[in-house]
């Protein structure tokens, strides 16, 4: 059932201004709709958030979320770890320093925040951004630099509701990104050694982080030339020119940079914001994307500004980034009209400002196509990312946090095929266009299929089973190092299988199981004993139902 629109006079939130509110702000949601909304706008609908959304509506909930303080990882890691070489240097670190506890801690902090941080929407958006502006610990150096990765994730969290131009500048200057894509220590051409600048960051900045490969219409469709071919957004030469413009950056340091190449190349890795080294910057004039001339003499900062201004003002950014945000949060296959509406908000947030992520995210979540959901669009939805398959369960049943200092949170990344900043490459866990032949013939994509292969879904399902049995707070398995979920309401409801099924549907799905299977399941649960030796009363029915539901397509597709 679609969200019903109340007249402004009946809105529960006070309408104080003289400016008329758009209709989307007046929407109120039913219980089930609220659960489905929160599954898009957080790491999973919790009972408390569900009640809040029902009470004040999704728009007001989003506004509340944007006032929550930002959960940061780096300060928490520094508070818990005695030694952080890439932050403070290795002065206080023992000779046998082991980075691995900090690696595990970063994973633990991510999961604990996903489960319980108050700034749910911000963290969900940061997670989405981390899959577009990709940095990963699956990297020779970054695998051993967890503090640097935490600082990068914090940059995304802090920028999640700000303007995109500021975010992309922070990302470009971040030391972890510099390490990941070769921006750090990239120096101008040297005719003596016959070297030229590294093109890696210049290329991916354009291809993946801002404008993409080909010209797009505001509705996300590819523009075709007279011969029916896509129109490239940049040439190889423009990549080379952009690479020249992005030379001369290095890790932050306290020393005054002198001009030797050895000093430049030997500077230690440090988290934080990179610094320009003028001696290694190509300060000549360049012609960058779209034939835009950049005069000489601007310096590294000036050249970076020129590049980022040009890219961020490119009309592609709204549909290119906006559509990907829709795919991460709401649906893999938005209609062109939906994409166009979001592109419009990207171009102008209502106050004449471009690239305002807060306004864009709000528009994505409150768009009528998102609110109407699968009732209006049969293919609406997303195959849930593996991280979200777990986090949604944890939040639905008020799970706690991971046992500190253990390995399970880190192990999740391998078993699930997905974790925080663990993409196999800068192309993320999947591409926005990934699909299979059956869906391609229907004109549909489903990127998350890439991490839901026969092998992957077996491991993911088995991890869920493990958790369902071992993480029940009423009878936790000693070996389980993860969050315990609150089983009380489930055990109580188990007396009446119909009630248990309704509870699980309400918490996890925000809608009913398929009706034919549903009646079979209820009949089956009637025959499952309430009392089984060694288990809490009702536990047998609870674990049986949870396993069936969480392995099912009904749960696996976020609608």
């Amino acid at each position, binding site marked *: 059932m679609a969200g019903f629109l109340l007249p402004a006079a009946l809105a529960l939130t006070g309408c104080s201004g003289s400016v008329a509110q758009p209709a989307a702000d007046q929407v109120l949601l039913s219980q089930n709709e609220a659960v489905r909304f929160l599954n898009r706008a957080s790491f999973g609908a919790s009972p408390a958030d569900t009640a809040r959304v029902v009470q004040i509506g999704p728009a007001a909930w989003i506004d509340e979320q944007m006032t929550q303080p930002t959960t940061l990882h780096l300060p928490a890691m520094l508070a818990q770890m005695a030694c952080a070489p890439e932050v403070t240097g290795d002065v206080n670190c023992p000779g046998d320093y082991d980075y691995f506890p900090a690696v595990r801690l970063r994973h633990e902090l991510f999961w604990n925040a996903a489960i319980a941080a108050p700034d749910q929407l911000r963290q969900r958006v940061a997670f989405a951004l981390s899959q577009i502006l990709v940095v990963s610990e699956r990297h020779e150096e970054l695998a051993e630099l967890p503090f640097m990765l935490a600082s990068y994730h914090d940059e995304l969290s802090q920028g999640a509701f700000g303007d995109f131009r500021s975010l992309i500048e922070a990302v470009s200057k971040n030391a972890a990104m510099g390490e990941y894509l*070769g921006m750090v220590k990239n120096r101008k051409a040297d005719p003596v050694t016959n070297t030229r*600048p*590294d093109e890696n960051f210049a290329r991916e900045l354009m291809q993946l982080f801002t404008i993409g*490969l080909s010209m797009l219409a505001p509705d996300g469709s590819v523009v075709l030339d007279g011969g029916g071919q896509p129109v490239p957004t940049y040439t190889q030469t423009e990549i080379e020119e952009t690479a020249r413009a992005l030379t001369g950056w290095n890790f932050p340091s306290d020393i005054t940079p002198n001009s030797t190449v050895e000093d430049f190349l030997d500077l230690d890795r440090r988290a934080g914001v990179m610094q320009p080294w003028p001696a290694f910057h190509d300060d000549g004039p360049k012609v960058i994307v779209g034939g835009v001339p950049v005069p000489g003499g601007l310096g590294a900062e000036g050249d970076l500004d020129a590049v980022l201004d040009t890219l961020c003002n490119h009309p592609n950014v709204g549909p290119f980034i906006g559509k990907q945000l829709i795919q991460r949060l709401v649906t893999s296959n938005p209609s062109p009209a939906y994409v166009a509406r979001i592109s419009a908000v990207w171009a102008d947030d209502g106050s004449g400002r471009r690239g305002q992520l807060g306004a864009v995210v709000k528009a994505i979540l409150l768009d009528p196509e998102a609110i109407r959901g699968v009732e209006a669009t049969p293919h609406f939805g997303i195959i849930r990312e593996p991280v979200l398959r777990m986090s949604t369960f944890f939040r639905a049943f008020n799970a706690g946090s991971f046992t500190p200092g253990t390995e399970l949170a880190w*192990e999740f990344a391998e078993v699930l095929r997905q974790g925080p900043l663990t993409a196999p490459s800068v192309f993320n866990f999947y591409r926005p266009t990934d699909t299979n032949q059956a*869906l391609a013939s229907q004109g549909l994509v489903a990127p998350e299929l890439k991490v839901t292969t026969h092998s992957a*879904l077996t491991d993911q399902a088995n991890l869920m089973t493990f958790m369902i049995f071992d993480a029940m707070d009423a009878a936790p398995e000693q070996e389980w190092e993860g969050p315990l979920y609150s089983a009380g309401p489930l055990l109580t409801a188990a007396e009446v299988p119909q009630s248990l099924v309704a509870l699980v549907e309400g918490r996890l799905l925000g809608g009913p199981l398929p009706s034919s299977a549903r009646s079979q399941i209820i009949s*089956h649960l009637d025959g499952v004993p309430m009392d089984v030796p060694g288990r809490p009363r009702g536990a047998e029915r609870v674990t*049986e139902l949870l396993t*069936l539901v969480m392995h099912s397509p009904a749960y696996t597709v976020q609608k």
Partner: protein
Amino acid sequence: MNIDIQKKLLDRRRFLRFGAGAAAAASVAQFTAVRALAGQRMMGGGNDYKALVCVFLYGGADTFNLLVPTSASGYATYAASRGDLAESQSSLLPITPLGIGAGEYGVHGSVPELQGLFETGKLAFVGNVGPLVQPTTKGAYLANSVGLPQYLFSHNDQQSQWHLARASGSGYAGWAGRVLDRMPGVGGSTSLSPAIGIGSTAQVIEGDQTSPYVIGEGGTSPIESYDDPARATLRDALLSAESHPLGREYAGTMSTAIDIDAQLSGLLAAGPSFDGVFPESELGAQLRMVARMIAIRSQLGVGRQVFHVGMGGFDTHDNQTGLLPGLFASLSAALGAFQQAMDSIGESQRVTTFTHTEFGRTLSSNGQGSDHGWGGNGLVMGGAVRGQQIYGTMPDLTLDGPDDVGDGRILPTTSVDQFAGTLSKWFGLGQTQMGLVFPNLSNFSNPDLGFMT
């Protein structure tokens, strides 16, 4: 899958209680599948079996440092172009290609296994391969006067053009998938797909009808908690009730996972494990799984299979001299072990292994590594390969020379279509089908490069 969790899940079986009488009940479906396979064994897998193994080097491998000219003039040109990226002449391992002789070429110092395979006729190189729409000269490239591959130097687009073996036109299916589409029945009576990805799927083995099966490096596992037939029935009811288009794909994948695990787990457990044969690397673990699958192919009764394995880390923009030796060493050790495994089970003549990579790299250095190139050297390995030869046309490695389209990006002299077409012909794709599967192949005068017997 992580060892600890896997062990815990096996231990879990002892704690799960499924209701009275269910603990001892074997899965009916599993029992039935095993009996069906026993019947198939008598029908026989046959000697008409062939397998292709695609080893995709993700990132764009610097293969102009894998196969290197060692004549005085050849090496001088190479070294001048490569600058600080050049392999030292003394580090290269000599090879003696038939028809060329000694002293002309060497291979990277980290690949003694590949050197040995080359010298014993089980490995061949194909020089300077890459996506081309048609034969292309530097002049035509610069003038844009012929059809060119789209989005040159972009990772995912160039990967795609290798997966498709087609540098123009549209379509989803990879070249090996398209080949398998035209070989109905090669799966035998098993429901296992003839296209198998180890650890992940890949476009090269996805066809219009062929849908790959993905198996983990360690083999298959059951999806736990369904020993009770009543529960399995409910699980299946939820799968078949699904009407959402995305949900149906998940349901299909889960059904297949359950079905294939039932077929394969016993066979794999009883088959050779190749313990101690393979290095414990990313590629070694995947190729070991390929070997285990090929070792049970008779029991499955399959006629044709294509495997995909992948190795990452080749995008050496940075620290190339530090990284490349380890990458090539790992590749060589894993390929050597795989060929040894195929020899040991008598499948050497029937299994052909080959490399793909999205591009070679710029001959010129960026000060710390190389950037995205275009053409690069490929290799093929197996008992049916006419080895100890370099096929195709080796390029002029001079910067700004006739094959350099900028900064040492080398214009390919052989297309991926020809490379894949030659493999497909050996694999059994009929002549009449060749033009349908490889629509641009007729643009090239030499559709069969001649490296297969």
